[in-house]
């Protein structure tokens, strides 16, 4: 073996070792059911129960419904955006609207225009013009009274 071949082999070894991803090999012996459960909850891990609640909201609403999202966070970057973005994915097809803007100011006009209110992790007082449509241990879905 010449020095040139040795250097080439060393560089190739660096490329191999540097790019190596252990996960692509350990997956063969991994508990796939546990991994699936973890992946299912991972995007919602900071708000446990949000996924299940919004999935229930989806089952009780229709495409085109305008759903205002109520969350325990009072600041956009302090948790509201986290829950609102994820709720929007789970409720795709419905029009989710925030009740807080990015400057943390309330948006009461969105409440006026909503056909539904989905409140997660909040004890909601009665709201005029809305009636309960569905309830779960994590929250309540209100719909506009007809």
């Amino acid at each position, binding site marked *: 073996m010449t020095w*040139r*071949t040795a*250097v*080439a*082999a*060393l*560089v*190739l*070894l*660096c*490329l*191999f*070792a*540097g*790019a*190596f*991803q252990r*996960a*692509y*090999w350990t*997956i*063969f012996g*991994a508990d*796939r059911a546990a*991994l*699936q*459960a*973890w*992946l*299912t909850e*991972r*995007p919602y891990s900071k708000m446990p129960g949000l996924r299940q609640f919004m999935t229930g909201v989806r089952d009780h609403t229709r*495409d085109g419904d305008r759903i205002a999202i109520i969350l325990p966070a009072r600041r956009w970057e302090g948790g509201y*955006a986290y829950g609102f*973005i*994820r709720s*929007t*994915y789970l409720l*795709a*097809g419905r*029009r*989710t*609207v*925030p009740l807080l803007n990015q400057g943390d100011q309330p948006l009461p006009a969105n409440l006026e225009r909503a056909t539904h209110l989905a409140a997660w992790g909040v004890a909601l007082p009665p709201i005029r013009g809305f009636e309960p449509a569905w309830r779960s241990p994590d929250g309540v879905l209100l719909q506009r009274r007809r």
Partner: protein
Amino acid sequence: MIETLLSIAVAFVAGCAAVFGSGVRRPLLRAMGEAWLLGIALCAGSLFALALAGIAWSLARALIVVAVVTAVLMIVGLRRRATEENAASDAGDRRSWVSAIFDLLTAATIAGYALLATAGPLAEIDFVAMWGLKARAFWIARGLDWSFLESPWYNWIHADYPPLLPLTFDWTTLFQGQWDDRWLGALYPCFALAVLLIIRSLLEEELGSPVYAAAVTLALAPAAASPWIGIAEGPLLAYGTAGVLLLRRALRDQIADRRSQIAGSTGALSIEYASLFLGCAAATKNEGMALLLAAALAMLVSTRNRAAVWRLWPAVAIAAPWLLVRAVFSFSTDLARGQPWLRVIENARHLSVLMHGIAAQTSGHYLFWIGVIAALVLSFRRAVHEERLVLVTVGLLLLFDVIASLSTAQGVAWLVRWSWERLLAQVALMAGFTAAVLIDGVRASRPQPPDVSSGGLAPR
């Protein structure tokens, strides 16, 4: 799962027609890689065309569009083959058991990646917040949902980003019949495998050693298998790398053709064909548009021929419709809002933060980058003369990324932390390929291939 595999198979068949229609003879492995990349883009493009025509998506309508385009491409391919003298490729006939072992290990890496990609619902936050959300909204609307894209409440979705990836998800969802964010992950190993097939084939053709080509492909396999499953990095990496490496190959083929006086031989890859992949990269993400610009400038530097750069028009033709839509709907890019140049100047004070942050992002793969730099240092002259296209493309793209990072309104440190590992991954395959080619020259002291800068494409 069966429906997802069927959507992949149909896209592959459509891509085979596109590859056949190009009239270029190439080794089977490369043809297969190119077929997937072009096929899935063609299928996504058919949904885009239907949406722009105001026709609601259905599986039957999408299949009709794809079938018509496939038939046209097949006819074009047949006519070309009937009228031109084919230069059959002899690559792929020199297999050995050592290269077969390396290839099996590469296949096992991709199989592991496929298991990981389909282990559960896609969990990347950018999938939930952006790529997957858009695809799901489009699926429900059975077309591009303009009111969703224009909504003031969803400004995090980056309405300006090109739609190829969401449309790819929608293509698969049309087969599934319902939104299922678990099996969409199956698309990612296809992208990784496709670009690896292209790399494997190019290396073997160029270096003549199946064992070395297979060893390098194995080394680069994890770099092709993007760990960010569900977002645009995997497809962008595949299209971008394929585009730049095929463009490099096209330039070499053209020089070789001119030298051997057989210009137009069907063995030669055309710049126009290679640029299709760059166009798909530009249709995937804004960084793909930056890559197209970087490749065009690198081509200008490499060939010193402005006319050659115009031959990238197919890439522009692929990217242009979305740019037009973006302009019509005023979907602005967040980095360009306000006064970006003032922010660049302001943030330039934090250049050291940026550089330290970038260095920190290589920490997981520092050996890889040491290998790349070592290859460049050991073969510096060859790198400058022969690999200028790829190196200038990578250099310019990173420069664009630095400027974009400095123009952020969210803070340089924040952007570096959340972006640069992905940005470096976008160029890792190109850099690794170049390092492998250069180091093969050190290993074998082989005669030098044509110098791209030597004027082979200079105006006559």
